[in-house]
């Protein structure tokens, strides 16, 4: 096992990783910007290293500074959490070259799954159905139009280096293609420094279901259930629940098998999840693979009792997985993301209280007095409810949200409460367009 892990992240995920380190008896080094010196993650770690000025590019994303912090403090591994450097192949490679273990999959897995068209090809070759679309990244509109005509409208134009719902443009017909193309291209350029795009058939009324897995160094893949993340706003997951309900007979197994095929095809190792679009009739299509611990990792954790972050560290340390002989999924879990409403400027937290009690798991690094920068609509807290049945879990989560106090910051709490009280959601699964079409009514 490692002796000291540098956590290259901040906020609730940094705390999450810190807990796993503590349980494993591993020392922790936190990094922070000049603005974060007194943030919770910096205060709670065994050591704290300020790696640069406030701008993320100058601090948390400053690879040499982060690596230098790890080396000068004698850390032997780096945990990227999620977001920031988590899926950055160059960072992972730089870690390895500096003799630091990168806690996550191999560099090649990050590169390969980060190149979405390439990932599509490999997974398709492995025998998993992917949506009709462009086999290669596209540089110009004409090529995009050709592919779109071939697969048929509506289509999604996606940034080749994108993911997580960013860098997406929808074209319902040929007239809309140019605009969609521009969106994907510019967002891809801005967010990922890559302006290549690809085109994919756009499915309406489909569910977004992802399968959680973890694989050890010997590529033994363990499946930890699936979750339905169809409640989305602007393609951002708002509510995730597991297990996915009302699946056609045998579909759960088929999804697990497909996820295993995708992971095995690249010899995947460590924690990851495979995203699928599932049509009402049960046909399903690979979208992409997330090569990291996900924001929603708590859902499989409470359902299976497996500590995914701890297991991920174990795998990276070359240890065997300590999973139960038979992983069984118990009860039903629903988690929602409480975000700040994106707007200009910042807001100071005046009062803060996270709900507790039976079956509730709330995670946040927010503190009274914190100034939240609203522009990006950052994640403020995650609240999860676990119960024997879906109905109980829903009631429990609704109750928990009435107890969540975040005074001073505009949040999406009201929207979440409306969504969770919606009879359509209570009745059963919804599709990825549900929330927005619903709100539109």
């Amino acid at each position, binding site marked *: 096992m490692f002796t000291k892990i540098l956590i290259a992240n901040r906020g609730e995920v940094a705390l999450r990783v810190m807990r796993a380190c503590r349980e494993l008896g591993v020392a922790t080094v936190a990094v922070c910007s000049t603005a974060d010196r007194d943030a919770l993650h910096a205060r709670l770690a065994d050591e704290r290293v300020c790696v640069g*000025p406030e701008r993320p590019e100058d601090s948390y994303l400053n690879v*040499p*500074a982060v690596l230098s*912090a790890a080396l*000068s*403090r004698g850390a032997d591994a780096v945990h990227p959490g999620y977001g920031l450097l988590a899926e950055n192949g160059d960072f992972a490679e730089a870690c390895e070259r500096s003799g630091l273990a990168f806690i996550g999959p191999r560099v090649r897995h990050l590169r390969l799954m980060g190149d979405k068209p390439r990932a599509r090809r490999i997974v398709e070759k492995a025998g998993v159905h992917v949506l009709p679309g462009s086999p290669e990244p596209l540089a110009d509109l004409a090529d995009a139009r050709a592919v779109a005509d071939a697969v048929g409208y509506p289509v999604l134009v996606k940034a080749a280096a994108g993911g997580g719902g960013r860098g997406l443009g929808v074209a319902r017909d040929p007239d809309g293609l140019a605009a969609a193309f521009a969106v994907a291209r510019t967002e891809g350029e801005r967010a990922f420094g890559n302006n290549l795009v690809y085109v994919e058939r756009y499915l309406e009324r489909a569910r977004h279901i992802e399968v959680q897995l973890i694989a050890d160094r010997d590529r033994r893949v363990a499946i930890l259930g699936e979750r339905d993340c169809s409640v989305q706003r602007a393609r951002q997951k708002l509510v995730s629940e597991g297990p996915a309900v009302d699946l056609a007979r045998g579909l759960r197994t088929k999804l697990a098998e497909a996820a295993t095929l995708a992971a095995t095809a690249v010899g995947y190792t460590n924690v990851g999840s495979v995203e699928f679009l599932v049509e009402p009739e049960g046909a399903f299509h690979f979208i992409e693979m997330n090569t990291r611990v996900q924001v929603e990792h708590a859902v499989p954790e409470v359902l299976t009792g497996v500590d995914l972050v701890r297991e991920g560290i174990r795998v990276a340390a070359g240890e065997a997985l300590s999973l139960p002989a038979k992983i069984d999924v118990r009860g039903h879990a629903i988690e929602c993301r409480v975000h700040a409403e994106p707007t200009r400027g910042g807001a100071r937290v005046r009062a803060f209280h996270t709900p507790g009690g039976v079956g509730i798991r709330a995670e946040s690094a927010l503190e009274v007095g914190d100034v939240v920068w609203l522009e990006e609509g950052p994640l403020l807290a995650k609240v999860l409810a676990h119960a024997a049945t879906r109905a109980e879990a829903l009631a429990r989560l609704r109750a928990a949200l009435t107890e969540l106090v975040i005074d001073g910051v505009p949040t999406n709490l009201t929207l979440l409460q409306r969504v969770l009280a919606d009879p359509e959601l209570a009745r059963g699964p919804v599709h990825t367009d549900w929330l927005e079409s619903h709100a539109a009514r």
Partner: protein
Amino acid sequence: MLMEESGLVELEIESAGEKVRLMRGRVADGGAAASAPPTRAARREAETDGGARAITSPMVGTFHRAPAPEAAAFTEVGDVVERGQVHCLIEAMKMMNEIEAEFRGRIVKIAVENGRPVEYGEPLFLIEPV
């Protein structure tokens, strides 16, 4: 200084058997040291103090008072350093980054022990302008 005069921005040397690249902190743009621009940072921090001013570390790394383990320290308390004179090295990712004085002054205090890790913005020297 050699590098100053030669206008060199990089120089490979053998130190204690292990090869290290020597860089000038102030011009190391695009290099490893670039992403936390030394000069800007160092100046800003330096100006935050009146009277004796703190020279803070422009980057994360290990603090070295001498060019090599056996060599004499660049500076000692009481020395007067000229603007642009190197008064320490910060080793970041096997690279030695020269840190230069931002102004002429007498070293009042050396805040960090030789060989200790330093974080961004950490005070290294206290210098009294003369």
